[in-house]
């Protein structure tokens, strides 16, 4: 019996040492981790987290230990996935008026559009087509519903519509 106990204990100890060494001395490749975290974010690129897009936010989470509860479009589900991936605690979403925005798309009222290109520059996924002094339009299939184009419009001709 003692032989068995000693053997198993020795194996457990050796495995424990090996694992702790691996986790301390062989940190995961940061770039890979950023890509993984980025993959868990909803990619609306809405910048509500305070970073200029999903990837910058992912980088901040990994490199600057930024909180994982800053993404309103992702909501609870994204927090849960991030917590699981990074081994952090699940925390409630930081208070925000926004809910899931990815269900809606921006629509330009073409009668009002003056062709200023301000919204085109603001779109994080290049989903707005238009040229100076020509009417603009939004590619509904590519729009993530981030609402970043609403503020720059000088004539308030962009509104959000349900995608369905």
């Amino acid at each position, binding site marked *: 019996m003692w032989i068995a106990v000693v053997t198993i204990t020795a194996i457990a100890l050796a495995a424990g040492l090996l694992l702790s060494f691996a986790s301390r001395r062989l940190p995961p490749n940061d770039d890979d981790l950023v890509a993984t975290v*980025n*993959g868990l*974010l*909803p*990619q*609306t*690129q809405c910048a509500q987290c305070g970073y200029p*897009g*999903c*990837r910058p936010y992912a980088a901040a989470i990994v490199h600057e230990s930024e909180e994982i509860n800053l993404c309103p479009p992702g909501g609870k589900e994204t927090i849960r996935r991030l917590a699981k991936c990074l081994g952090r605690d699940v925390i409630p979403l930081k208070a925000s008026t926004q809910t899931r925005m*990815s269900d809606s798309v921006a629509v330009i009222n073409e009668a009002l559009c003056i062709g200023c290109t301000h919204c085109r520059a603001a779109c*994080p*996924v*290049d*989903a707005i087509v238009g040229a100076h002094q020509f009417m603009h339009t939004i590619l509904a299939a*590519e729009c*993530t519903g981030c609402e970043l184009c609403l503020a720059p419009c000088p004539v308030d001709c962009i509104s959000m519509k349900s995608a369905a």
Partner: protein
Amino acid sequence: MSAPTFDLGTLHGGLRMPACKDESTARVIQHIPIPTQLVLPLAQHAGEPAHPVVSIGERVLRGQLIADADGMISAPVHASSSGKIVAIEQWPVSRRLGENAPCIVIECDGLDSPVQLSEPIVPFEKVDPESLLQKILHGGIVGLGGAVFPTAQKLMAATAESLEHLIINGVECEPYISCDDVLMREHAAEIVIGAQILLHALQLDHCLIAVESDKPEAIHALADALTELQDSRIVIKQIPTIYPSGAEDQVVQLVTKKEVPTGGLPTDVGCLVQNVGTAVAVHNWINDGEPLISRVTTVTGDGIAAPMNVMARIGTTIADVVNFVGGYTDRAKRLIIGGPMTGKAVSTDRVPLVKATNTILVLSETPAVGTEQPCIRCGECAQVCPILLLPQQLYWYACADDEAKLRSYGLIDCIECGCCDLVCPSHIPLTADFRMAKARMRELADETARAERARKRFESRTVRLEREQLQRAQELLEQRKKVQKAGPQAIQEILERSKSKDNSASEKDE
């Protein structure tokens, strides 16, 4: 003459269920007279809905195209009788998703005048397979076994594969449904000719007609038709009566001993399956020029006064159909479109009969299902699963929303036959849970794909902005260099020039 039962593959599990078909097969198919109003949904098939090509107030004739196919996978819709288009509007329909769908409403004039055929009917043997497939495309024909996949697209996709058999599916294993049975009894010749047309279109020379052993009349009728038509390419295969042997992949497994691979199609094992009703529809369109505007439907259940099979125009409302068969009985409680296992309950009989409607089932009260209790891991569900899945494991993972596990345990392959529900001693609604889990998985996959595209677009935009910024900086640098190279004298000249411009401008103002 009868077909021998021999040389069959085996099917795991399944259930022997009470057939409940005798009431409806006692009578021959009854033709329902043309109703006063027809309601034709634009989406009666899998794929993209058709788009209307008629306008309100227009007069249409029987067989006239009223909505054309739209997109890669779609089928046209034809007027089931002559009359006037009175509306194109939302109407209650029987669908898995949503209650209402856009429909074309025709007020029938009762004359039933047919439309002039656009091209003369030629014997199908004289038409080359390619044009035959094109012709089938315009007949509005969809798979009448239940999936309503557009037949022409299915055939065209199959021609790219190396095929061995055409299988005509006359296996109707779900209780109560008997429309295919009576169709085989009364229209055996049309089925065989339909099969010949399909063989010609696919350039195949082997066809199996699969029929269950509990349909001796149908087998007789088919055998007689075969003897009369002298076609040795077509063989009848009798298969055991067990639910769900009529599902597409299961039929293939039974008659050819080959299992359709995960996520694959019967064409992967060299088979193409078509329902007997589809074969008749192909015959009617190619040989008689009549598109798919009517079908045989079973009207049955203990809530129906006189259960029977009826030949109804597509678009007839369920209320009209039920009136024709003598109305509801006092016990009628639930209206189900489709069979008891795979059908869908609807809340109103205003819904129209569509291409997919094989059965109108009216039952009395809900069967006494016990309350749901915890799983006791008895394993009964795994015993009956026809595709060898482990429903109890899938159930845990569906509850835990564990997508990776659901995927590795093959939830995608579940055919939603409902066998596991029936045998579960804890009365767990397994199939409903699996349907929901599948829908969630699809949604998640859609979302992931969308996020992936947005990510790529964002990244390429970031790269573009950086490149533009770099370019601009470069340009500025070069300009500055140019000016420095030209020396102070050049700068002086430029300043003077601008000064004189200013002076002339101010002179003008004065």
